[in-house]
């Protein structure tokens, strides 16, 4: 079995099994804790908890202009690499085929050249993010090992993906195997670090959305 077969086979099986295990473990470990739902009466005319939850999820997509002064870079750069990752992950045809193979659903992709360009922008943005983390006094103080591991786990698939499409550094099948292995590592790490925010943000925002909606307060 060569490296590519190992990556496409056992490594991915293992990673996805760990991903499923860890994600459910963590989500249920949180959501099955007591909810403490005894609440004072809602403000008159406040929206339903469901719409408050939705509103919380949506409103938090965009920061208040009041916080832009200090957080502009974090906000803009965060948007760039999140969108970049989303485009590269979900609109590159080989990735769509991967998803189709797993879940049976698919959608049209973007031209590969566009994906390469977005990939480069994403990589640059991620580098800017880690540079910011390592230089900003606030971020240095609040960062943990998790932040750096999660960065590496996110950056490696982008880097190996770019190397693979540009055939840099090694043979294509080696690079693509490393790419898949880096994705496997991403999946393994995902449930145990902050990457999990990709799922948790929904709950976190919705909960605060409901709390604020209940009080008639603005998020």
């Amino acid at each position, binding site marked *: 079995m060569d490296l590519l077969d190992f990556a496409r086979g056992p490594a991915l099986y293992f990673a996805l099994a760990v991903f499923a295990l860890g994600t459910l473990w963590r989500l249920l470990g949180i959501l099955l804790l*007591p909810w403490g739902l005894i609440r004072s009466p809602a403000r008159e005319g406040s929206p339903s908890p469901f719409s408050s939850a939705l509103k919380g999820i949506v409103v938090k997509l965009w920061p208040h202009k009041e916080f832009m002064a200090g957080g502009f870079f974090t906000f803009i750069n965060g948007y760039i690499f999140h969108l970049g990752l989303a485009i590269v992950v979900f609109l590159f045809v080989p990735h769509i085929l991967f998803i189709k193979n797993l879940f049976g659903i698919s959608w049209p992709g973007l031209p590969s050249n566009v994906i390469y360009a977005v990939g480069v922008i994403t990589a640059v943005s991620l580098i800017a993010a880690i540079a910011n983390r390592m230089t900003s006094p606030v971020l240095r*103080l609040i960062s943990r090992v998790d932040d750096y591991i999660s960065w590496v786990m996110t950056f490696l698939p982008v880097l190996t993906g770019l190397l693979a499409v540009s055939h840099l550094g090694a043979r294509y099948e080696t690079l693509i195997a490393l790419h898949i292995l880096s994705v496997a590592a991403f999946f393994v790490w995902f449930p145990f670090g902050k990457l999990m925010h990709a799922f948790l943000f929904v709950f976190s925002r919705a909960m605060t959305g409901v709390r604020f909606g209940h009080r008639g307060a603005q998020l």
Partner: protein
Amino acid sequence: MTAKTTTAGVAYDVHGDMSETDRRDAAMKGFVREFGAIAAAHMESCVRCGMCANACHFYVATGEPAYTPINKLRPFEQAYHRHAGPFAPIYRMLGIVPSVTVEKLEEWQRLIFDACTLCGRCTLACPMGIDIAELIKEARHGMYKAGLIPERLQLMDRTTKAWGSPATPAEDFADIINEAGEEFGVTMNVDLPKADYLVTVAPAELSEHTKALADVAKIMNRMGLSWTYHSEGFEASNIGYLNGDTELQEKMTRRIIDTAIKIGAKTLVLPECGHAYGAARWEAARWYGGDIPVRVIHMTEFLQEAVNSGKIKLNKIDATASFHDPCQLVRRGGVTKAPRDVLGKLGVTVKELQNHGSLGVCCGGGGGVVSNVRADPIRFKAFELKRREVEDAGADRFVTACGQCRITLTLGAKHFNWNKKVESLLELVADNLAD
């Protein structure tokens, strides 16, 4: 109590006689009880983006990275991961997350109490929607259990437990009310056996702001309402809400709710106090253990109802004013429109501060900080943010609807020899009642 400093020179206070282990365990147990699904989801969602720093007046005013809101939760979070999180058993087994040390808790006392007003502006800044302010409030519960709270808050705790109020013994309450009635020439109702409205007070009103007691009575009387103050349930400020003493919070909550039920009141009116609103309006059911059969409203909401219903008429003041939004009332309470409605009825043109409404900047003294003298230096720095905004807005008058904010801002003004008077919305209404 013993005032101490950590090796790094951070001041902290210690109460009670406990071994280090007992103290730590007490804190852990206090923490662990807080970890419900919501706190857990919030604890797990942080991506360390640092956006919350920009929202905190203490960070903005000092540039001190330690004041980054999420950083203030560090020991609480550590306890969560070690004792309650999904991976807690693994973390314990492999020693990935160590026990929180007493030293760490001592060091963090300053961040959890001195450097946080529970104003919740960080909650609005957090892209993950983490309610950081709520978590800090919950973290205070364990800190209280471990006897690791600032001396002043401990003192108020003791006083409140003894008197039922941090300001005065309950036996003296009726006298204070009646004296104020005499002083300001208003008919007072106190300890009536039955009334539709139970009116509660804040500590400052029993000392510095006694005019407020009379102002409420004046308006109630003008409206012809059935109302009363009551010695058994008069204190709306809830020190337990601020210092983490959950038993006291429950006791204080029960006292006013039970009194309202006892006298058959349909409405419990809270004084011009921010955290009283948080405690009685939004948290009461939790500590009361079920539905509250009484409507709980803030003084500002009461005034809004009064002016909007036309039951009182106001003289027009031809002036401009800026309104300082009390955090617990506006940002975390949802009462944004009411004070502006009332100012409008007074004929006041509101010149909004740069940050206003739910994004208003805290006065710097909420969450017990104004009582905690140790926090004075950063409180004054934060005050300067507010002062700049008020000066930039350039209004004639400066009004708020929270006694605590008023005291904080007045102290700040005095410190900097700033000649801006901080006025009470209630007082403004009472003083301008039209015939």
